[in-house]
Each structure stands twice: as structure tokens, then as C-alpha cells.
């Protein structure tokens, strides 16, 4: 039978290096995906998710088992992502806009090769979305990404953000309101 996450944490705390590597293998894709939703860049998402694993590893002693490893680790991950965004606040918007201009996803626009007009629209859309998400206050952005992109329940998000479910609902509603206003032209 496969050991649970918490069993692996216990082993890792006792110096079993491989046990933590197994935790990384289990959670790396999900962790990367969340980091990508924040950073919207492959390399940065990789760095951020790896950084979160390293912090978790260094602070395994702080894991008290009150929540599952999953909740504890993803809280660290979200904080790493938010902290990174805070530090990069001034430059991120410009970098992001450049990145998306070079990275339009045809799958979001059409299955057929996009026409020049569609390409212009797709670029505008990517720019707008990046800027709109970037402009959201961190708690709203967190609630929105965890719900809209990750499909977590309000209850799970509340646990991860260590706040009340009602507060998460308010954050989510405000985020959606802000995004609708920014992106109305593409509805």
C-alpha cells in the first residue's frame, strides 16, 4: 500500500531524503500549474513551484498536521507566488505583455489558422487579461485563480487562505466584477 502524504512527511522529517522526493513527484504538476496561473510563464512557474518545495522541505518542522500536507504546502506555494508578484510588481506587467504578444494560443481563438484580424484581437485579449489579472488585489487574485483555474471548492480555498468561506465569496465576486469590467469588450 502506498504511504500517505503525511507518512512521507514523517519519514522526511527523520532524514529520509527520498520520501520528500516522492512528495515532489506527487505534487509537482499541480504545484506547477498553480504557479503558472500566477506567473503565466513556464520558466517562472517552474522556479516558483520548486522554491515552494524547497521552503516546505526546509520547514517541515513547522508542519503540525492540523491541515493536510496538501493544504499546508499549497499555502506556502501561493505565498511564494504572491511574494514574487509583489517584488516584481513594477516590471511584471511590461514583461507579461511582451511575453503574451509572442505567445498567442491559437486554441483559444480558433481551431483554424487565425486571420490577421483574429491575431490582433487575440493579442489584445491576452494583453488585457494579463493586465486585468495583474491589477487584482492579491487576495482576490488568489481566490479567483484557485476557483476559476484550479476548480477548488470555496471550502478548500477558505482553508488554504485561512479565512472564512464568506470572505472567499466576497473576494471571488469582487475579482469577477473587476475582470468583467476590464474584459467586457471581448464578451
Amino acid at each position, binding site marked *: 500500500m502506498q504511504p500517505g502524504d503525511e507518512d512521507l512527511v514523517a519519514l522526511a522529517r527523520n532524514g529520509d531524503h527520498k520520501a520528500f*522526493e516522492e512528495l515532489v513527484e506527487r505534487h*509537482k504538476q499541480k504545484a506547477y500549474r498553480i504557479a503558472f496561473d500566477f506567473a503565466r510563464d*513556464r520558466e517562472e512557474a517552474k522556479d516558483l513551484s520548486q522554491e515552494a518545495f524547497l*521552503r516546505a522541505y526546509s*520547514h517541515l518542522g513547522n508542519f503540525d498536521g492540523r491541515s493536510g500536507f496538501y493544504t499546508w504546502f499549497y499555502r506556502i506555494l501561493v*505565498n511564494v507566488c504572491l511574494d514574487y508578484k509583489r517584488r516584481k510588481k513594477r516590471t511584471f506587467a511590461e514583461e507579461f505583455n511582451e511575453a503574451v504578444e509572442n505567445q498567442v494560443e491559437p486554441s483559444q481563438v480558433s481551431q483554424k489558422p487565425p486571420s490577421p484580424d483574429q491575431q490582433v484581437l487575440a493579442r489584445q485579449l491576452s494583453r488585457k487579461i494579463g493586465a486585468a489579472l495583474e491589477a487584482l488585489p492579491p487576495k482576490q487574485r488568489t481566490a479567483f485563480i484557485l476557483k*476559476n483555474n484550479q476548480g477548488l471548492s470555496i471550502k478548500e480555498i477558505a482553508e488554504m487562505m485561512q479565512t472564512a468561506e464568506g470572505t472567499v465569496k466576497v473576494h471571488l465576486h469582487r475579482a469577477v466584477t473587476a475582470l468583467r469590467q476590464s474584459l467586457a469588450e*471581448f464578451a
Partner: protein
Amino acid sequence: MAQHDKAVAVACTQWEEDLVLHYYGELRGSERTAVEDHVRGCEPCRFYLKELESILPLTVKPDEPPQAFWDNYSREMRRKLTEVKERKSWWQSLALFFQPWAIPVSATAAVAVLALTLTLGKGFWGSKEIPQDDQAFMEILPAAENLEFFKTMEVLDAMDFLEDMGSPVKGSA
């Protein structure tokens, strides 16, 4: 571009939050029925829901890294973990050196110097206690690490303040 003039749909204010929750499938039972009944009879709210359905999926940026990316990810992670582990054990052995049982050995000379200082330099320290340098040194590293950790763990908590400072669109509902 005519699109730029497009106005956002205006739903009934008291239903808006529930419409968002309904869109995300978060309503059950009577709450869900109430929203559905309302939407059936309210065109603005129906339009609002349609708008959510067309806008919100666009905000997800798809990304499917190839297998090589994941292989590389694991390799890098193993290397980084080994580095952290080595750093950790280095500090642990340093901390061991300052363990209480080691102090008598390592501090014998220090005690002698201290005694001399106290005898010859009385008054030099003023009324202050002699600083417990060894102990202070032992606490610096883990404390610094924890401070950094808790600083980042508090990011979410500090956000209320940041949010008050300013989203231009907040509180519009």
C-alpha cells in the same frame, strides 16, 4: 472598433454574488433553485450569466509542458534538495559544536578571558549583563530562516491593507 463601447451587463445587485457562485457550481438545494427561478424571470441577470460564461474561460491560459520538461523538473529538484540538505547538515554540525556539552570545552579559554576582563576592566561594561554571545549566535540562523518564512506566510494577511490602498474597481458591486 465598436467593441470598445460595449457596456457590461448589469445584474440585480442583490443577486450578483449568487450568480457568480452559481456559475462556479457552488450553490446547492434551495439556494440554487432560488437563483435559477430568479434568472428565468430576469433578463439582465440572464445576460449577466451569459457574459460570465463567455468571459471567464478566456482568463485561463493553457499550458501543456512536454515530458522532457517534467524529467528536467525532477532532476533539478533533486539537485536543489541535495544542496539544501547539505547546507542543513553543515549548520547542524556547527550547532552541535555549540551544544551545552561542548561549551565547557570550547569556552574554557573564554571564561578565563572573561574573568580577566571583569577583574581588570570593571566598569567597562557599565551596568549591562555580559552578552551571551554563544547563545545569541546559535539563535541567529534558525531565527532568520523563520522570520523569512513567516514574513512570506503573512503575505496573505497583509493583503487587507494593500487592498484597502487600492483596487480602482473594488467595491463597485
